[in-house]
């Protein structure tokens, strides 16, 4: 289970890394580039995606794209801080 979020960010994505097959769909689809494939392997032998709040192009907006494109339910939750 990947837990790479910094506390109290506006929005967060939980990657269930044991479900991840490292297909990189989330990585290439995230408009902010908040996701990267990890260097390490998961139990299935894949490099799972890791969430970073500060993406290459900006902060996670909880847009949900990664959630919708992930074929393996590995993007388990997209959360937003309560207003």
């Amino acid at each position, binding site marked *: 289970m990947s837990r790479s979020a*910094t506390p*109290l960010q506006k*929005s967060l994505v939980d990657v269930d890394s044991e*479900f991840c097959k490292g297909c*990189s769909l989330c990585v290439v689809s995230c408009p902010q580039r908040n996701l990267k494939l990890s260097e390490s392997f998961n139990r299935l032998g894949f490099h799972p995606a890791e969430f970073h709040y500060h993406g290459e192009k900006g902060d996670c907006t909880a847009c*949900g794209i990664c959630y919708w494109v*992930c*074929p393996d339910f590995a993007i388990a939750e997209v*959360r937003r801080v309560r207003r």
Partner: protein
Amino acid sequence: MTVVQGAPAAEYEVKLGRLSTLTGRPTHYCAGCEHGILTRLVANAIEELGLRERTVLVDSVGCSVFAHDYINTDAVQAPHGRAPAVMSGIKRVRPDLMVFAVQGDGDAVSIGLLELLYAANRAEPITIFLVNNAIYGMTGGQMAPTTPEGMVTTTTPQGRDVAETGRPLDATKLLAGLDGPSYVKRVVLPIAPMGSTDLYSARGPLEGAKSVLNAFKVQMRGGFSFVEFVSTCSINWKMSVLESKRFATETLAKLFPPGLYKDKLGVEKG
């Protein structure tokens, strides 16, 4: 359960989360496959419409035969190609149920073409999602009726010769030509490379989500709904996952152009 470091769960609200319509089991699908994407879209729509407890999934034979492992509803297995007939059987005795299937292009457009056309023509209130990956995925990459000209498959090692095997069949077009169906749509499901940037567009999955929801709504209103998803099969196309997305969204999408082919009930208008 995931715990966000230092961020008490209470301070966050889940915008998109786990679905009780999913069993929570990891899939057998290959990495990056649209079968997986569609599974989430379907589960999401069932949940949104509150239909989980009166839904019956009909398993077709193809990679989607595993669907019941992931989608947490009642399920019945159809022989290869016969899902539309099995669905008709269910619906005819239990019109109160929501019945749907995910079929492959081999299942629906090859061996099961008659059952598909007949169920559509009878306007059975059922929903069929066609995953058109232009190949027989589950059995290791033989030619499908939707395989484009020249594509190498294990049974067309020199590339598909349409003079011998016929031109790719377009199920969406065939169905749109019948009176029966209420909703016929084709969506290019994979994420798509966007011109010069290295970003991929998620329009496919998002359009897919909407289409799945609409398809179910059509069934609820008594219509036959059908959505074809132009998809990939990187394993059997012998491409990397991202190469396969490019091929599907650039080449296949030309052969099988996306669009709303029929919407008798006007669900897309809202």
